[in-house]
């Protein structure tokens, strides 16, 4: 499994997009912070799945919030995708993960397409668009290119844009990523698991579903016209949790025949049945981040009976890619490794 050539190729492709990446760290979402708390399922959740963490009892969780980039330099205030990886501790060393991000869709529907996308997204030197070019854009009613962030020398944005212009499946993710902004807090953003999972209910009915975390405090981004601040998200979270817990609602959409079960580039419409599955309460930021956060190896395919992966090829490829990444950085071992 760790020598799966596609998984190795995927990890190498991601790493090539971040030339300053440091060995021994995560290839993307490199900078993050771990938080502890608990999850309590709603009273209706158990009607949809037999999975242990949806039966109503309080389940301890570890959550890692992160910035999207694989660079070791912290730029909290830059417009960037954020991650929220959640581990539900089910007891007896059994766990299940749910990995989500602030983008509501992925960039590519297949491994080949992702490898192409990744090549296109390799950073190139980025300069401010000339004022004359901006005026020309405005006369064409065309969106001028975004200015580089302070200190930003290179970016993959132009390559991603060119790729999206040629591949419609990437357009929504590239469009959204380009304007996603920076959250005022890791707990003031909505996070989407983007892939389809198959839930099995107590009645043995199998349902295709997608999950999102919605912050009870509401979604809020920083002022995009203000100069970005590099380091604030970790301290903000520590300060916030010292005052009071932060909460998220887990929302599940149920897909219907004809929906893109296997395509994470397509969001499902808001008309799908939406179920409130439970509440996540975050209470503390552990002192020892290395043990309680950085060494943890999350995996979107670490599931428990009652939840299965779908035919989504990106989801399936992530399973081994995360394992390759874990081995390279020396993360805690994963149950897949034995199998």
């Amino acid at each position, binding site marked *: 499994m760790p020598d799966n050539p596609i998984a190795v190729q995927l990890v190498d492709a991601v790493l090539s997009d971040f030339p300053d990446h440091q060995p021994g760290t995560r290839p993307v979402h490199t900078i993050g912070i771990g938080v502890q708390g608990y999850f309590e399922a709603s009273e209706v959740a158990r009607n949809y799945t037999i999975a242990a963490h949806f039966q109503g009892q309080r389940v301890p969780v570890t959550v890692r919030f992160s910035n999207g980039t694989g660079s070791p330099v912290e730029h909290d205030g830059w417009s960037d995708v954020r991650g929220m990886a959640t581990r539900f501790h089910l007891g007896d060393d059994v766990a299940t993960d749910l990995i989500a991000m602030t983008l509501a869709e992925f960039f590519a529907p297949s491994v080949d397409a992702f490898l192409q996308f990744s090549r296109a997204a390799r950073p190139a030197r980025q300069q*401010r668009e000339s004022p004359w070019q901006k005026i020309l854009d405005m006369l064409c009613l065309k969106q001028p290119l975004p200015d580089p962030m302070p200190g930003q020398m290179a970016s993959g944005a132009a390559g991603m844009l060119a790729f999206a212009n040629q591949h419609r499946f990437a357009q929504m993710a590239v469009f959204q990523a380009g304007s996603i902004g920076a959250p005022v807090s890791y707990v003031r953003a909505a996070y989407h698991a983007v892939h389809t999972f198959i839930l099995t209910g107590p009645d043995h009915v199998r349902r295709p579903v997608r999950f999102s975390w919605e912050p009870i405090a509401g979604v809020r981004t920083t002022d995009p016209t203000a100069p970005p601040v590099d380091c604030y998200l970790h301290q903000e979270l520590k300060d916030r949790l010292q005052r009071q817990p932060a909460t998220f609602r887990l929302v599940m959409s149920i897909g219907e025949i004809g929906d893109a079960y296997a395509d994470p580039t397509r969001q499902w419409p808001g008309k799908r049945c939406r179920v409130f599955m439970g509440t996540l309460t975050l209470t503390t930021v552990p002192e020892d981040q290395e043990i309680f956060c950085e060494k943890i190896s999350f995996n979107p395919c670490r599931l428990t009976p009652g939840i299965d992966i779908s035919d989504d090829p990106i989801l399936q490829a992530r399973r081994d890619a995360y394992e390759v990444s874990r081995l390279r950085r020396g993360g805690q071992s994963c149950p897949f490794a034995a199998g």
Partner: protein
Amino acid sequence: MESEATWFDRLVDALPNTRLFQFIAEWILVPYWAARTPVKPQPGGPRMAPQPSENLQHMMNLIMPLKDKSPIGRAKAALAIAQNVDEIYAGLNNVGTVHFARFVLVDGNLCMFSVYDGDFSNYIRDFIATIGSVFNAIVALIEDGDAVIPCEHHVEAFIDWVHARDLYQVPDLATDLLAQHNAAASGDDLRLLPRDLILQLHANPNVSLGSGYRGYPAFSVAQIRQKLGVGW
């Protein structure tokens, strides 16, 4: 070193918010690009889709310009509704697929906003059958309405008339607008998405921004009323 913003950069960045640029955009750029790259007004109402929940809780946003836009004309429209409240409410109950419906006066327009289950044509057909007389009274006050009344005698023409006044619903996913304007699967330019939207709004001044939020998606009026124990 990264290039610092000069005074000229800052001036250009602020340009879109200046009155001068807004004037040029409105009176020169938009008409120019509308003529150079014409955009077809997109049809109103929801898109067809095979999924069952796509057939539930459709939004209708009917904008009907009044013949007489004066306060007296608007009062006549208000009176036409007020005089027929019983017929309207009984008709809505008879149609049985309506979640919400309301009439609104906005400037010189009488608007009917509703949320309904099922097919649009059948929705209007049901209305003609149940409250056709009320529609006749209302449509008589609307521009270009005389040709389709009495609606019982012009069923298909009346359905088309209503459809033409039902607002275009901008796609929920912004980039789907590119695909609507450019049927070919290539040649898109994401940076031209603002122009696509501007030109669609030039051709289609009133639109619904997306298909709307639903508090209990994927459930019909019948399911909700049955579950609440209030009969259907």
